[in-house]
């Protein structure tokens, strides 16, 4: 039986995690994500799970990675300053192919910035924030319902692809309360186990190695150093390093058609909005109030890997309009793929674009 609730976005995220089988939360309180930690502190002990408040965000993500190697579904939640602190260990998770879910309820930055106001300024940091080349998956919820559903999806993708998955929320969806229909069960994708006797980092055609859970007798060595398929450090072998890093990137990028989740409205339109996260709501309002086949919408739930192929579905597009709560981070990504104008509609300060602002952008002569 589904159940109707009136939940805050952060509560929905925590409940989604619990429904997905998350049994470890390690983190550090930070506005505007703290309600997730508080809800996990309340609920995890009753589900035989572990909540631990660590001494900082570096330790938070470290404990999550440690827990993940015991087979647990593990997560942390943070916001800008804590996200910055996590970056080195996020690279470690990418290099060691450790499944983990990192929620970033984005607030205005840089630095301490606007702790209680929404923003989307960490979209590039989430993609490129740790040193070296790697790929990740990032999902952007636009409602309390999606805070729940995309958290579940984040765990499944993380276990399937053995990669850190980010729920890139924002203060607006994290803090608002709205109607949510809570399902009675959620989809579950398990980690592929390592076949006994196989080297732990040898891969199949899907480029994803089987998981050798700690405590099962695999005797696996896990290191952030460049390693061979046995997991042993080989840090000065150029070919091996190149092959490893390319695989870490390709296992995600080559699966982007499968991973990417997006919606297309009015594919024949000549003006097309592209949005993710809270600004989706303003675009939806505009589309609702002004039904017009000439206004299109590409609504992204997955931002990374970027679904560049979806852009091509708008064959008559004359320009893309990209409202973001940052100075055009994803607009620039879109520019890489198209030869029509990409109009960045940045908004800083914590407020959403109003429908009137987006309508005005449509009126600007092409």
């Amino acid at each position, binding site marked *: 039986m589904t159940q109707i609730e009136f939940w805050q976005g952060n509560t929905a995220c925590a409940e989604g995690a619990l429904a997905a089988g998350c049994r470890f939360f390690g983190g550090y309180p930070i506005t505007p994500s703290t309600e997730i930690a508080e809800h996990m502190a309340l609920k995890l002990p009753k589900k035989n799970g572990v909540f631990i408040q660590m*001494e900082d965000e*570096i330790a938070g993500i470290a404990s999550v990675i*440690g*827990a993940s190697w015991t*087979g647990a579904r593990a997560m942390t939640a943070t916001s800008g300053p804590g996200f910055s602190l996590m970056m080195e260990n996020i690279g470690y998770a990418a290099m060691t192919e450790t499944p983990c879910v990192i929620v970033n309820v984005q607030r205005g930055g840089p630095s301490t910035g606007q702790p209680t106001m929404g923003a989307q300024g960490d979209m590039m940091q989430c993609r490129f924030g740790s040193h070296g080349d790697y790929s990740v998956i990032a999902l952007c919820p636009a409602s309390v319902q999606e805070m729940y559903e995309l958290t579940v999806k984040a765990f499944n993708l993380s276990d399937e692809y053995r990669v850190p998955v980010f729920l890139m929320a924002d203060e607006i969806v994290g803090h608002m309360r709205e109607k949510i229909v809570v399902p009675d069960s959620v989809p579950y994708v398990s980690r592929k186990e390592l076949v006994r006797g196989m080297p732990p980092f040898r891969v199949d055609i899907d480029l994803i190695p089987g998981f050798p859970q700690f405590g099962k*007798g695999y005797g*696996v060595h896990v290191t*952030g150093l460049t390693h061979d398929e046995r997991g*042993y450090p080989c840090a000065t072998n150029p070919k091996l390093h190149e092959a490893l890093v390319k695989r870490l990137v390709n296992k995600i990028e080559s699966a982007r058609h499968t991973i990417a989740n997006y919606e297309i409205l009015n594919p024949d339109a000549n003006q097309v909005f592209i949005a993710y996260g809270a600004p989706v709501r303003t675009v939806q309002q505009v589309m609702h109030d002004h039904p017009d086949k000439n206004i299109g919408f590409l609504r992204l739930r997955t931002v990374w890997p970027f679904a560049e192929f979806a852009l091509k579905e708008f064959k008559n597009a004359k320009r893309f309009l990209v409202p973001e709560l940052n100075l055009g981070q994803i607009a620039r990504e879109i520019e890489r793929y198209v030869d029509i104008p990409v109009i960045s509609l940045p908004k800083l300060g914590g407020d959403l674009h109003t429908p009137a602002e987006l309508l005005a952008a449509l009126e600007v002569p092409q």
Partner: protein
Amino acid sequence: MSFEDWYRQDRLPHIFCAGCGNGTIINCTLAAIEQMAWKKEETVFVSGIGCSSRAPGYIAADSLHTTHGRAIAFATGVKLANPDLNVVVFTGDGDLAAIGGNHFIHGCRRNIDLTVVCMNNQIYGMTGGQGSPTTPRGCISSTTPYGCAETPFDLCELAIASGANYVSRWTSYHVKELEKSVLAGLQTPGFSFIEALVQCPTAFGRRNKFKQVSDQVDYLRTHTMLKAKRDRLLDQGQHIPPDMYIVGELARRNRPALGVK
């Protein structure tokens, strides 16, 4: 089974320099683990970055070689998520007390059920001999070319003040005592911290007038004083030379612990 069976034979030879003290400490630790009769599949080794942190890579159990300074934080996740696993952390003075200092004191405060073995060579060995938080005053390193001007940490006092259940200090000279001490640490629920002073001929010894490996080991032998003797001398109102390292079991207590099986 002997402690040698814990080694990953296909990973040898190791990277440690000739004369390095780390191998001694790893042997003592594995010998103590062997006495515990722990199985490989229920034992996990965790480390950070540095020479000491390469130890888990040579051991044929599940092991997590993590980021600089963060081993205790990773190990906390492993242990809490599966308390049935025995978790041993290898670390060094720079890893533990500089970049990882915060995780060290909080690990002690939580009294989480880990055994942490610190190979304290008083220098950053792997990166060529920079000063660390335990480099003694006046000692030469590549970043203290005129002599270290800072006062070093006493790692054991730090662990005791922060709440660890078991704390001891020995050196690479005190092989039998060290093995017994690690064993006691493994047996004690809660956070066990064993500091082992080790010689580093390559990065420390050659800059600080220890021409031979044995010179630095001799120094460790002659500049250590048993805690019992120190206490007796203090009771008699006698002076303790300031360059003496106090060795022995420095704390053993039964404070509430976290993550115990």
